[in-house]
C-alpha cells in the first residue's frame, strides 16, 4: 500500500491501537443504563447515542470492525464533559472516560476533524495574550510559537475536557464551543429566560455539574411540582460569566445563586475564579443600585442535596422579603 493508500485506509477505518486494549472492559458493560441517569449530555440531547453506554457501544463496534468511523460517530465520541458521573456510577467497573480518551486519540490520529464539546479559537479575535493557557488544568491549550510573526493558541483535542473555563475567561471572547449541548453562554442565557417566564420563578441557581448534579437528582422536582427556583447545570461554576448573572437580573430574576465545589475539591480550580469574579460583580451591582445580597456563592460537595435544598429555601425566603428588583425605565439599568 502506497502512502496515499495508507492515509486513506487510516482515515476510513483507523487502526484503534489504543482502544483495542479495552475490549475486555467493554465486554463488561452490561448496558444497564445507570451511566446515563446522571449524564448532562444525555439530559440535553436525549438520544441513546449520547449516553455513555451508547458511546461505548460505538467504540466497541469500531474496534471489532462492525462499523466504520463516520463523522457523526466521531462527533458523538468527542461530546463529553468528563464529569465522570458515568464511571463513578458504573458498578461493572468500566473506566468509561479512559476508554473515551483513547478512542479520541485514535480518531484524531486517523485524521478526523471534529468539534464535539472541544473549545475552538477564533484566530481573528485572539490576541494570543495567553491568559487561557495556565487556566487549563489539563494543559489542553498552548501557544504555538513556531512562526514568530504568527503565534497562535492551539487546542489539544484529546485533552480538552470541554469545561469551558477558558471560554468564560477570554477577554476577547475568542474562545467558543459548538452550540447544541446547552452549555454555551447564549444557550444558558436562553435557559434563564425560559425559567423566568415560568410563573413564580424568583431564583436562578447555576449549579456545577461535578458537585451538584448527582445530588440534584435527589431534589429536583420534575413537571407539575412548581418551585420558586430554577436550577441550571452550567458545568463548572468557573464558566458562569458575569454577563450571565447580569442577564438573569435583566430577565427578571430576584436573585442568583452560583453553586460550586468547595475549595480544593474543584476538578478545574474554577471555583476560585468564580469567587474572585463574584466579589467584583457584587461591586458592580452596588453601582447599579442592586443589593449585592441578591447574589450568593455557595459551596456543595457531591451528594449534599439536603444542604442544597436548605440553602435554596433560605435564599428564596430572603428574596421574598427583599421583593423584586425595580427596573429603571429610562436607561434600562436595573435598580432596586
Amino acid at each position: 500500500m502506497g502512502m496515499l493508500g495508507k492515509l486513506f485506509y487510516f482515515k476510513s477505518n483507523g487502526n484503534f491501537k489504543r482502544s483495542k486494549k479495552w475490549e475486555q472492559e467493554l465486554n463488561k458493560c452490561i448496558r444497564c443504563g445507570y451511566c446515563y441517569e446522571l449524564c448532562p449530555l444525555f439530559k440535553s440531547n436525549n438520544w441513546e447515542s449520547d449516553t455513555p453506554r451508547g458511546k461505548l457501544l460505538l467504540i466497541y463496534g469500531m474496534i471489532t470492525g462492525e462499523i466504520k468511523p463516520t463523522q457523526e460517530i466521531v462527533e458523538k465520541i468527542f461530546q463529553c464533559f468528563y464529569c465522570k458521573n458515568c464511571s463513578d456510577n458504573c458498578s461493572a467497573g468500566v473506566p468509561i472516560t479512559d476508554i473515551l480518551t483513547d478512542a479520541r486519540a485514535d480518531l484524531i490520529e486517523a485524521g478526523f476533524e471534529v468539534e464535539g464539546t472541544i473549545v475552538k479559537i477564533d484566530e481573528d479575535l485572539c490576541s494570543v495574550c495567553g491568559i487561557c493557557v495556565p487556566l487549563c488544568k489539563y494543559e489542553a491549550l498552548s501557544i504555538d510559537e513556531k512562526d514568530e510573526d504568527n503565534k497562535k493558541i492551539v487546542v489539544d483535542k484529546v485533552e480538552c475536557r470541554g469545561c469551558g473555563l477558558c471560554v468564560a475567561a477570554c477577554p476577547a471572547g475568542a474562545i467558543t464551543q459548538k452550540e447544541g449541548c446547552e452549555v454555551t453562554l447564549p444557550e444558558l442565557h436562553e435557559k434563564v429566560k425560559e425559567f423566568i417566564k415560568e410563573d413564580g420563578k424568583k431564583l436562578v441557581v447555576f449549579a456545577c455539574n461535578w458537585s451538584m448534579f448527582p445530588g440534584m437528582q435527589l431534589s429536583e422536582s420534575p413537571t407539575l411540582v412548581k418551585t420558586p427556583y430554577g436550577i441550571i447545570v452550567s458545568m463548572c461554576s468557573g464558566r458562569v460569566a458575569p454577563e450571565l448573572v447580569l442577564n438573569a437580573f435583566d430577565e427578571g430574576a430576584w436573585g442568583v445563586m452560583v453553586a460550586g465545589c468547595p475549595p480544593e475539591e474543584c476538578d478545574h480550580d474554577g471555583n476560585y475564579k468564580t469567587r474572585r469574579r463574584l466579589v467584583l460583580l457584587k461591586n458592580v451591582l452596588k453601582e447599579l443600585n442592586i443589593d449585592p445580597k441578591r447574589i450568593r456563592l455557595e459551596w456543595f460537595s457531591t451528594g449534599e442535596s439536603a444542604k442544597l435544598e436548605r440553602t435554596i429555601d433560605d435564599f428564596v425566603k430572603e428574596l421574598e422579603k427583599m421583593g423584586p428588583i425595580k427596573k429603571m425605565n429610562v436607561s434600562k439599568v436595573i435598580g432596586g
Partner: protein
Amino acid sequence: MKIDIEKLKEIVGENNVSDDIADLYVYGSDASVHHALPTAVVRPKTIEEVQKIMRYANANKIPVVPRGAGSGTSGHTVPIDGGIILDMKQMNRILDIRPEDMLVKVEPGVVDDDLNRALKPLGLFYPPAPASSRIATIGGEIAANASGVRSVKYGATRDYVYGMKVVLANGDLVNLGSNTRVHSSGYQLERLIVGSEGTLGVVVEATMGIRPLPKYRCLAVANFDKLQGAGNAISDIISSGCEPSMLELMDKIGIIAVNKAMDLGLKEVGAIILFEADGNVKEAVDFEIEKMKKICKKHNGKDIKKSYDLAERTKLFSGRKKLFASLSQYKEGIICTDLADDMGVPNSKIAETAEKIHEIAKKNNVIMAVYGHCGSGVIHTKIMLDPKKKSQWKDAEHVIEELYDYIDSVGGVTSAEHGIGLSKAPAWKKARPDMIPVMRKVKQALDPNNILNPHKIMDAPDDWVKATNLRYKVG
C-alpha cells in the same frame, strides 16, 4: 427496507428522526445479548405524532418497535426485522397528580424515580419500582409488567394500572380501563397490554394507582452460612404469614461481586437476606421485623442488624441495588450476561431452586449468582462466562435448557418480571405451548399486519443464540 425518512420528518420534525449509523447501531441493542439494526429511529412527542407514524407504518407494513429506557434484558426492543424504533423517552410529562383520587396520569417516557420524586413531597409513592427505577420508564414497566423489591407486599405494575390510552397498529387511539382501582366494565384490555412487550399497541398515556408513603420503614440484614438456610428462611417467612415489604436474597457470588465493585466489606458468607417491614405504627413494624428475625434464627441466620435510619438503610441496601452490574467484576476474564435472569418459582421451592442453579452452573462451566426478590418468588441470576469463547455460548445454551426444564418441573414460570423477548422465548414456548395459538389470535386481531414489535415472545425464533447477532465478538 425502504422507509420514507422525509415523511417521518414531516410528522415529528427534522431533529427527531435519524437514519445515521451512529444512532442505528446503538438503538439496535438493549441490556440483552442481542443486536440488530433498525432502519430508522423516531422520537414522537405527542399522541397525534404516534398515530401518524403508526398509520404510515401500517400502510407500508413497516415494523415498529416502541422503546423506553432500553434496559430490557431479553431483547424486547432489539429490532429483529429492522424497521422503526419508536423512542418514547421524549413523551415524559407527568400530566396529573390526583392525591384525592390516589392516581397519577403520566406519559410513557416518565422515569419511575422522577415520578416518585414528584410524589414524595405529597407523602405518596408509586410502589412497583424495579431495581432499574432510576432509568426505567413507566411505559417500559407496563410493557414488561415490571416489579421490584417491594413486590412482595405491593405487587407488580399490573396491580397499579387503572387505565391507559393506547395507539393501535392501525393508528387508532383507544381509551382503556378507568380512573378507579377496580372496574367491571367490559374486557380488562388495559391488563392485556400489561406484559405485551410492545406487540399489541403503543401506550401513550397511563393512569396509575399510587399509595401513601408509610411512616416507618425498618430494614434488617441476616447472614447465613448456607444458601439453603437462607432459602428456607425466606419460604418460612412467607408461609408463616409475615408481611415483609421487602425480602431479598443475595448469595456468596453476589456478595463477593459487590464487595469488589463497591468495597462494602460485607461478610462473605453463604448468603444474605435483606428483609424490611413498613407501616404507620412503629410497634407493628417492630413486631413484623422481630417475627422475621426469629424465623431467620431458626434457620441459623446470624449477625442480624436492623435500622430505621434512611442513610443506614440505603447503605445496607446499596449492594443489592447495584448487584446486577457488579457481577461483571466477580472474576477476571468473565463477564455478566443477561441470560436466565428472572425465573419465578412457588414459595416452597426457593432453597431448592437456588441450589439447583449453582449445580447446573458448575456442571456447565459457567458461574451463576443467585439473588432476587425471593419473597415474591422471583429468583434472579445471570450467566457469567467468557463471551469470546464459542464453547461458552454452548455452555450457556445447555444451562438454559436444563434450568428452564427444572423451573417448569416445579411449577415455576420462565419470566417473573423482565419479560420473554427473544432470549427466553424458546424456553417459554416449550413450557406453554397451549398459550401460543391463543396469543397469536389476539395479536392477529389487534395487529393484522404484524408490524408491532414482530417476532417476539410466541413468534420469536426457536434458537436464541442465532435469533440475532450476539452483541459480543465471539472467537
